[in-house]
């Protein structure tokens, strides 16, 4: 098993015919993802990358039974695409778009909650994230496929390239990943750390979890509380931004230390207290997981001397 995506996932791409959508949909197809079509308003009835294009998500659900969405729509329109997918009955929505106004996401959050209250299961991943990949089965995102390998380590992260770094270390240790989830760097997002940890805890394939956090907000502290109470699988963490100056947004809209909230120290302390392994040096995270899962003798190439 894995979480969120597998071989049976029927994926549609929003913003399918745009430059980004085309490039990444092509990469996902080459990886073997089951892309069943795309959505570009006004281009319904045409074909792109050998797949049908639909005017609306509703049409795609009706015609090709899509059950997951991958969104590449530009920031001013992306929140609307998330809601369109949700309304059409898509259950897993992955939004790659960076730069969506936070109040748009506040409104999306409210509407998705209303759908859930009405009994609809809908999961949003992102925005401003690299996507989700279940190695060997389905890649729905912009991550380079070849660094992944099927295995037992679940990875969840607020950052894109930092996720690749951790994944690559795990693969270089001869291990692999169950599912890798980029939850994104925005202040208001879909799936959070706790939601994802719950999924990994319940997933039989996942034996250990890598969680990559960063400064800003309280998602890591919330995760620590969950790990302490509910998590029986080992969790390995890195928190980026130890040396970031307070009050400045470090690239991600959500990566900012405001007053005394969201500091690196408070996150690391909470995670350590919860029993998670926190590495100071990112280059050591793969070796740390390998040591735990393989017992002894991890490859120490990347480790600190």
């Amino acid at each position: 098993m894995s979480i969120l995506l597998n071989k049976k996932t029927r994926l549609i791409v929003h913003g399918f015919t745009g430059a980004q959508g085309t490039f990444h949909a092509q990469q996902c197809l080459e990886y073997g993802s089951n892309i069943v079509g795309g959505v570009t308003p006004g281009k319904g009835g045409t074909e792109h990358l050998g797949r049908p294009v639909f005017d609306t998500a509703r049409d795609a659900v009706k015609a090709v039974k899509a059950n997951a969405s991958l969104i590449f729509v530009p920031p001013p329109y992306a929140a609307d695409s998330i809601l369109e997918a949700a309304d059409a009955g898509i259950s897993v929505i992955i939004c790659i778009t960076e730069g969506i106004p936070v109040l748009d996401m506040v409104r999306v959050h409210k509407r998705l909650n209303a759908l859930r209250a009405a009994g609809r299961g809908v999961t949003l991943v992102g925005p401003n994230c690299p996507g989700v990949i279940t190695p060997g089965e389905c890649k729905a995102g912009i991550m380079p496929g070849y660094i992944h390998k099927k295995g037992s380590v679940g990875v969840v992260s607020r950052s894109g390239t930092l996720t690749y770094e951790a994944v690559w270390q795990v693969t270089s240790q001869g291990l692999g990943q169950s599912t890798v989830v980029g939850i994104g760097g925005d202040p208001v997002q879909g799936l959070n750390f706790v939601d994802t940890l719950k999924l990994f805890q319940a997933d039989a394939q996942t034996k250990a979890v890598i969680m990559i956090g960063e400064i800003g907000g309280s998602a890591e502290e919330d995760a620590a509380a969950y790990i302490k109470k509910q998590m029986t699988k080992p969790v390995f963490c890195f928190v980026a931004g130890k040396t970031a100056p307070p009050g400045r947004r470090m690239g991600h809209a959500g990566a900012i230390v405001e007053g005394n909230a969201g500091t690196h120290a408070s996150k690391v302390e909470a995670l350590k207290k919860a029993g998670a392994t926190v590495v100071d040096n990112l280059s050591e995270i793969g070796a740390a997981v390998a040591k735990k899962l393989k017992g002894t003798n991890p490859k120490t190439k990347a480790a600190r001397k």
Partner: protein
Amino acid sequence: MKLLEYEGKEIFERYGIPVLRRHGVIKIGDSTDKLDLQGQGPWIVKAQVLAGGRGKAGGVKLAKTAAEARDLAGKMLGMKMVTHQTQGRALTVEEVLVEDACPIAREIYISVVLDRKNARPAIIASAEGGMSIEELAHNHPEKIVRVAVDPEAGLLDYQARQLAFDLKIPQKNFRDFTCLAVNMVRVFMDMDANLVEINPLIISVDGKLIALDAKIVTDDNALFRHKDQAAKPDHEASEIEKEAKEIGINYIGLDGNIGCMVNGAGLAMATLDTVKMAGGDAANFLDVGGGANVDQVTKALQIILKDPKVKAVLVNIFGGIMKCDNIASGVVEASKKVHIKVPLIVRLEGTNVKEGKAILARSGLKLEQADSLWEAAQKAVAAAKR
């Protein structure tokens, strides 16, 4: 983007939030004659900087005569200011505001913030204003009132009334206060703000409710629907930071001597952390972005090298959207345009890494390649010390 006090107050006025009469803003180079000092005074002269704690740092002064106000304003321009919020750095006062002085009977704290955890706006208030909310939250958490706000309905009338009762607003100011609270939320929503803060909101000796200060922080991501705002200068950014922003590069200047070019904000932060761990200090945070091309990489390198502190440059790219061969070509191109006098350390991984490494090797450029972030950081720190 953070707005200066007077910019915030201009917006408050449009929403009927009461502020004091302003007598002009002067910038460095302006004559103090530009100030329109009508009336009896006294006046308050206020440095327009993006940091709290101005009063203690000499950035807020009382003037009893018009001549004194002009004198104080002139002296305040160009002044270097260090407050508890500037992390030891000195801010230069580039603009000064003069407004009516107002004797204070009572101070209140009120702000509208984004409650990230619950994904909605929230009001945070306290019957005791004036001090920083962080201090208050730390020393007297029980004195802080929070109100959850619906993003579509705004602050409801009963919520505004409850808040007024909680803050013990006098009967005389009750109606003004509830209007103010509702309108602060409107400013927050209409402006796409991350923060709208009044500290302090005062009741004057003659019994009026007045916003004595104004702090508004807007969401950069929403600038596309606020053209007037987008056209205004970003007071927080340095010249290099503004230049970087114009070409779509996220750059933040830091104090160290190792220039960093990284793709992705998280990896960029982790690169700074790793450099520190290897015994060095980064000169900057720089995220070249996901879709950067040869031109952008060239400009990113040029920007890094503008900082005279830079003694070595570390390029750390994990290719996803960004392909390693593009980065490598950018580095080669840049080296043709800019004379790179400092050691260059490049670590490439990810999409098209083989092509990227080959381009660098073929180029004949004097640079060191590294296979891991840790190795790259160590090499950069060693190079900067040479």
